[in-house]
């Protein structure tokens, strides 16, 4: 079984942005592995760095003075390569073929004046150097694979003729067109209605298992994480503050930020007040020294938590949190509202 064979291994990824002439870190010490047939969720609020992580891996940060450091080893059939050390030309061969990506808004990601079939064919022809007829046949199979009814007709449709859910299925079909080893899905269901979201989540889960792909699923929604992933990285202010198996992280969260996040999800009976994290995420240029969460943390100690970034501490096999006060935190309790 290929269960634990890694597809991607990210080590100490750091991204700095040039802001006003100085480099400011946007991501620091980001490390994780994704195995074949595994889905890793990257979850965080706005400004946590979750999207920058996926764009950095694909070298899609653009020319805005972004500097990347660290290693991101992609295990290809032909051997390992470091994604951060590839030329743009080499990345063109990797993107779409080895790593594919799907985005939040399928309408802006699709070309409005091209048929669905032509758009799916484009990547196939580009990467697999095959004839259009052959590519179109593949496209038909892919459209059936993502469970779109009446595949032949769908191939001739334009994006505006499809619903949001169907457009996202087209995006998934395009992403899978060259059988990638790794799929990066960045908030793929955020723009969809809840019943349609559930269908797409289910489809992604099923396809990922069937095709034995690795998947990185970027989202702000902890409930969505629970539907698709086996492991989760919780990001805050450009760092992974906690990482571990989904059930473990949700049932026994270690980091005070993860705990606050879980407790602020409304899910109890009405009338009870929700837990609200105090303060707000610091802007990128004004991040504190020491623990990034310390200014908002009720357990933070002056000195211990305010001088250097905490290193990840393992709390259980495969479950780690960046907090120096783990031994002194009380046992986690869900919000009182939750106790029925």
């Amino acid at each position, binding site marked *: 079984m290929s269960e634990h064979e890694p597809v991607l291994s990210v080590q100490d990824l750091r991204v700095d942005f040039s802001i006003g002439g100085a480099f400011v870190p946007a991501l620091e010490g980001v490390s994780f592995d994704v195995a074949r047939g595994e889905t890793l969720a990257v979850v965080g*609020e*706005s400004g946590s760095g979750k999207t920058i992580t996926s764009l950095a891996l694909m070298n899609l940060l653009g020319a805005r003075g972004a500097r990347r450091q660290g290693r991101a080893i992609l295990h290809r059939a032909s051997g390992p390569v470091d994604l951060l050390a590839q030329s743009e030309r080499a990345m063109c061969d990797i993107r779409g073929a080895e790593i594919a990506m799907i985005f939040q808004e399928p309408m802006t990601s699709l070309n409005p004046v091209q048929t669905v079939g032509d758009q799916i064919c484009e990547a196939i022809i580009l990467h697999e150097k095959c004839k259009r007829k052959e590519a179109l046949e593949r496209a038909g199979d892919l459209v059936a694979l993502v469970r779109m009814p009446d595949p032949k007709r769908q191939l001739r449709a334009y994006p505006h003729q499809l*619903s*949001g*859910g*169907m457009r996202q299925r087209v995006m998934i079909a395009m992403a899978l067109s060259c059988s990638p080893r790794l799929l990066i899905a960045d908030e793929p269901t955020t723009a969809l*209605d*809840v*019943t*349609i*979201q*559930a*269908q797409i*989540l*289910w489809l992604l889960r099923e396809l990922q298992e069937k095709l034995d792909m690795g998947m990185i699923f970027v989202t*702000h*929604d*902890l*409930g*969505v*994480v*629970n*539907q698709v992933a086996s492991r989760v990285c919780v990001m805050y202010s450009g760092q992974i503050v906690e990482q571990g198996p989904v059930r473990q992280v*949700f049932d026994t969260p270690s980091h005070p930020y993860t705990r*606050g*996040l*879980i407790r*602020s*999800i*409304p*899910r*109890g*009976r*009405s*009338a009870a*007040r*929700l*837990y*609200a*994290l105090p303060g*707000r995420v610091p802007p990128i240029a004004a991040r504190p020294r020491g623990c990034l969460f310390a200014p908002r943390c009720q357990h933070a100690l002056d000195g211990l938590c305010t001088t250097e970034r905490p290193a990840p501490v393992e709390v259980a096999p495969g479950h780690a949190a960046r907090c120096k006060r783990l031994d002194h935190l009380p046992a986690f309790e869900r919000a009182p509202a939750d106790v029925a």
Partner: protein
Amino acid sequence: MSRDLLVEIDGLNKHFPVRGGTVKAVQDVSFAIHRGETVGLVGESGSGKSTLGRLLLRLIEPTSGEITFDGQSVSGARARELRALRRRMQMIFQDPYASLNRYFTIERTLTEPLHLHGIGRNADERRRIAAEMLEKVGFGPEVLQRYPASFSGGQRQRIGICRALMLRPDLVVADEPVSALDVSVQAQVLNILGDLRAEMNLTMLFITHDLAVVRQIAHRVVVLYLGRVMEIGPVEAMFDCAAHPYTETLVAAAPSIDHVIRPAELVGEIPNPLSPPSGCPFRTRCAHAVSACASADMSLREIAPNRFTSCIRAAAPGAFGQAPGVQVPA
């Protein structure tokens, strides 16, 4: 008519002519809101929930139907009467970036409604009223001179709430007020809304697609699908035991950290609103549908105290398929 009712909506319809036909965005909707009550209006895109919110404030004109506010007709009000009514009903919008004028200081944004309605003798007094209200949403008076650009999304939404409350309205229509916010900020804003509701004895129509949020804030819920009311009932009872299969589907499909969605719970696409299915619009996706559903009359039935459903197959909340008097072909 009960004095306890602040809002009554009766047989409300809104049709939008579009190329290729008519979208019946709101169809034969009737319900009432009690004083001090929060009614959650839940549905997916195209359900008509935002249209209904706008109709209620008469920001758009209904095709037919009657809206009554505190015994006065909203739908029949003339411009002058409407202006007086509007002072008592306000709206909070979804997008805190688009709904504040970025060229106005917070002071100007907050005091403008006071100006329009002739409240406060002079600028000083209006500023004082604004500062008082700002304090209720957790800001000091120093923010009066700032512009929206210097606030985060959550802060802007608190300012939007503050603006809606400046005239001390009786009714607030909140259209997805926390949907654009991160979960931790969402919690702050929901708490503030809950506190102010109690303090100012507000009546609310809370429009959302998020069932967890509705469960947090609403007393009763109206579930809409393709412009039709599917179910009306008290929030907890509805979550425990739905009275319409659509509600059941919505509850099951909501992603939660506590359960994993089963694939059997979700079928089909939301139909084209230009040609919705006849009878019950949900029948094309419903596991309990029978041929009688295609010609079903969509009027609400009370199948348990305060539990209203349009499903002809609902015998009791949570029990579908045994409705008395419905012929089920073998």
